[in-house]
């Protein structure tokens, strides 16, 4: 992984996933101790569109490793607003830093940035395309809660059509003999290309409209937000919006090891009465994002 950009979840192998999980676990165990691993290093966080959560998670990771940060959190105050190309911006910033973390609304921008930069680039989201560190922190979290990545039943709930998070997770988990349960409104079903991918890899999957039917067998319930703007018919949205909300009462009869994940931000798809239960794991998942990003940055910089 040394000196190699992380642009897409497809850039990394199963072995790379395990290496990241292992290093992230070390950071988690030593959470209270200050680290100077990144002393003298500068990480640039270039956020061409705002994403407060992701940016703070990366910046927290760099700071916890003792590194320094330069960057911006939205493009309007930069030379991009003056018409500078992405190529020139990235090439220039790569002269100032040891690693670039970039978020950009245009798909494929991260790959392009990695080709023009003189330092490694970590993709923090390129439009609807890829957000690989989210996927890796999801793998870390699943492994942490289940003690394994193998043979799990994973229920994906919500917007399965547009959600890049669930698509990446599905592909990354395909190495580990999972079973998938897809629960979504019919407008937001898992696209066919992913079902074909699962069939080609002999991975069992099924589709459901009723979440209650699949909760008892699930090891992981991964909830995503159903956005009103995805519906062509607002009446249809009103009809289904509450069908995919998880309440505490629904957790009865679920497996003791079952954990609920969510990439956040949450709106109302997980009722707050779930939060105090031991099955709610989305805030730990957010914390794991910091450990996972610490692992990714230090591995790419060859410090681990």
């Amino acid at each position: 992984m040394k000196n190699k950009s992380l642009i897409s979840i497809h850039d990394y192998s199963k072995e790379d996933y395990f290496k990241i999980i292992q290093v992230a676990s070390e950071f988690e165990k030593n959470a209270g101790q200050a680290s100077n691993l990144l002393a003298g290093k500068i990480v640039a966080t270039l956020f061409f569109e705002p994403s407060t959560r992701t940016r703070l998670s990366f910046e927290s990771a760099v700071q916890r490793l003792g590194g320094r940060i330069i960057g911006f959190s939205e493009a309007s105050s930069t030379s991009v607003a003056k018409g500078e190309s992405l190529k020139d911006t990235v090439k220039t910033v790569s002269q100032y830093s040891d690693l670039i973390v970039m978020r950009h609304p245009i798909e494929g921008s991260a790959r392009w940035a990695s080709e023009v930069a003189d330092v490694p680039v970590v993709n923090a989201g390129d439009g609807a395309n890829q957000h690989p560190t989210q996927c890796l922190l999801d793998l870390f979290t699943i492994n942490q809660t289940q003690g394994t990545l193998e043979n799990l039943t994973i229920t994906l709930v919500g917007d399965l059509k547009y959600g890049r998070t669930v698509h990446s997770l599905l592909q990354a988990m395909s190495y580990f003999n999972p079973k998938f349960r897809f629960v979504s409104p019919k407008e937001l079903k898992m696209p066919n290309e992913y079902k074909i991918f699962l069939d080609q890899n002999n991975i069992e999957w099924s589709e459901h409209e009723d979440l209650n039917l699949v909760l008892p067998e699930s090891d992981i319930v991964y909830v995503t937000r159903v956005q009103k703007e995805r519906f062509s018919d607002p009446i249809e949205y009103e009809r289904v919006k509450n069908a995919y909300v998880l309440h505490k009462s629904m957790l009865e009869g679920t497996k003791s090891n079952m954990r609920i994940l969510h990439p956040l931000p949450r709106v109302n798809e997980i009722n707050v009465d779930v939060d105090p239960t031991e099955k709610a794991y989305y805030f730990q998942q957010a914390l794991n994002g910091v450990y996972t990003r610490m692992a990714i940055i230090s591995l790419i910089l060859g410090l681990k």
Partner: protein
Amino acid sequence: MENKDLKELKVSAIKDGTVIDHIPAKNLFKVISILELTKIDTQITIGYNFESKKLGKKGIIKISEKFPDDRDLNKIAMIAPEAKINIIRDYAVVEKKTVAVPDYIEGIIRCMNPKCITNFEKVVTRFDVISKTDVNLKCCYCEKITDQDHFELI
């Protein structure tokens, strides 16, 4: 022989040059554009909407005294993967070529995803060819598929 004679009547023979046959009719004019045939001054015979068992309707191009290079052939492969190319010398076929869809292509085709970086900045498009029968290209940048029906040449 009778059939062959009829065909000869439809498209006359050339002495030296290149015959490109089995072009899907709908892509005939794209092939003409790729080979920049409007810019050359030798004799060209173009047949359009000929009956074809394999393709339904096909096109054929006979270009006198011209021999397209590999880059042009690659371009043809993208939109006419079943094209047969005959090199003619003194009215005889001296070489038969089939076009082969490569595993990877650079340039030539535009990514059909309007949100792809290649449609915003001066980036040479790059694709992995993920299917060669119905040619499907996966953009190395945005990772979206551009299918044969949406090929737009650069």
